[in-house]
């Protein structure tokens, strides 16, 4: 018996594209957001009319926010029309096998109790759940963000999110929670990037490059000639 590798097309172009748009936007939003919350104070004696850097940071935050939102919406749409690995139901732990899968991932990849690597083609069940939680956090950031934004805009779209202010009591509360959730993304990103490297290293299936080209490699046992 020898092993040969088979190429499988896992991530379709829209999945890869929205993935990288989201990645870029989240990093931009977290960095600019943090600066909005804690601006660097340049000790300059300049007149206000000569500079606008803080305004620009906020502009970048809001621009990235819009791009992020629509990319996010598009990805949800793709969850309904995309291939089996992109389907919305892979993210919701509704089936028993997903819970069983999660337990196995927990044993093998998180607690490192068994040594045989567990190999899944798309997302493994635990990762799927973590993406689902990230989806909810995305949604939360969008609602709170546009809820705050509605105070600065007469545009129709942000007004759709105004209800979050009375719900949370005040703009202050909305802002505070919006800020706290930035840390959810920071921590998610750290873990997510590490795990991609981990799987690539342990399983050797090209996890890292799969999000660029879309292909993963799985082993096939083929009978010797």
């Amino acid at each position, binding site marked *: 018996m020898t092993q040969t590798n088979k190429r499988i097309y896992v991530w379709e172009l829209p999945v890869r594209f929205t993935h990288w748009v989201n990645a870029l936007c989240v990093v931009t939003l977290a960095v600019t957001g943090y600066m909005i919350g804690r601006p660097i104070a340049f000790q300059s*004696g300049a007149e206000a009319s000569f500079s606008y*850097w803080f305004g620009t940071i906020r502009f970048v935050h809001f621009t990235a926010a819009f791009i992020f939102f629509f990319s996010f919406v598009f990805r949800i749409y793709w969850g309904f029309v995309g291939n089996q690995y992109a389907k919305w139901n892979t993210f919701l732990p509704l089936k028993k096998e997903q819970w069983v899968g999660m337990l196995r991932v927990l044993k093998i990849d998180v607690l490192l109790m068994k040594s045989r690597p567990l190999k899944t083609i798309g997302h493994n069940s635990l990762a799927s759940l973590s993406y689902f939680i990230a989806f909810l956090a995305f949604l939360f950031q969008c609602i709170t963000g546009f809820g705050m934004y509605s105070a600065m805009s007469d545009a129709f779209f942000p007004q759709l999110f105004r209800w979050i202010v009375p719900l949370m009591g005040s703009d202050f509360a909305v802002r505070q929670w919006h800020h706290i959730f930035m840390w959810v993304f920071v921590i998610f990103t750290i873990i997510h990037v590490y795990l991609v490297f981990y799987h690539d290293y342990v399983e050797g299936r090209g996890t890292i490059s799969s999000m660029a080209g879309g292909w993963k490699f799985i082993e096939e046992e083929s009978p010797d000639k």
Partner: protein
Amino acid sequence: MSDKPLTVYEDMKSKGYSRRDFIKFCGMMAAFIGVASTGVSKVVKALESKSRMPVVWFHFQECTCCSESFIRSSHPMVADILLDNISLDYTQTLQAPAGYQAEKSLQDVMKNFKGQYLMLVEGSIPTGDDGVYCCIAGKSAIDIVKEAAKDAKAVIAWGNCASHGCVQGAKPNPTGAQPVHKVISGVPLINVPGCPPIAEVMAGVIVHLLAFDRIPQLDGLKRPKEFYSRRVHDTCYRRPNYDAGLFVQTFDDENAKRGYCLYKMGCRGPVTYNACAVIKWNNGVSYPIQSGHGCIGCSEANFWDNGPFYQHLASFPGFGIETTADKIGVVAGIATAAGIAAHAITTNIRKGKEIKEEIKESDHSQKEDNV
């Protein structure tokens, strides 16, 4: 009191105000409530023809700063006219009668002007322990409010106490203090938050009710949009410094002298809806930010719990006073990185052998392929 109630204008005349004073007042009020100049005549006509509106003004858990603000409004007529002309039939702090007579006048209004009287509430309502923490004439504040609201034409909640609970409602809220809108339902209600609200805003809301006979347009938190649709930050004269990123770092630095933005000093202007920067205080003299102090957000819900006032983010509930979400975030980030390092090392120990075997296998099959 005469049989036929005087109109606002008649009453003003009898107090010695001229027609000119009256028109000036109408113009000012029309401007505040945001009607176009063509609408001034509507206000004039209303105050000329409408008789005084019966009003009861309650005081519960409060400090009377709303009343103080109101009677010290910049325009002498605001208090004069409105306090007299809205025919304040019952108000614990200003009325002449006391005891039985005072309570009787309240009962009279509720009986004789069913569905016509305006109910103003200053102060929050304690709901803990059956409301024993605030009783007047043997009745608890909750019972009084519920009884009076039943037949009121509209209810105005003055100040942060009545709108959001203010300091009594701050954690741990020992008396179970609640804003008016949490206690009553089924009556049109207007929140006029602020600690205290601006006198001209209070007057404007009343004039709106008098002139147009309906409550002003309200936002999601039941605040009149004409005064609370914009944040202090949107009309702040220091705003150009904010956009330029010019911030005060400490109250005694060079930047404070230059009048830079107070954002980093914890200014709540960006999350506070009020008209302070437009109408200002004490006859338009100044407002907190103009005096060099950040906004503390006194017209917003839970502003006491969102402290400390001198930092941008509130301290995190359950942690030390000075712990902001950022500090906790950094700790969580470091913990995550440490966890990852541990996991990576363990991976190499537990799975190293397996990976080495696979590498060997791969070498092997490569050689085979080459053969």
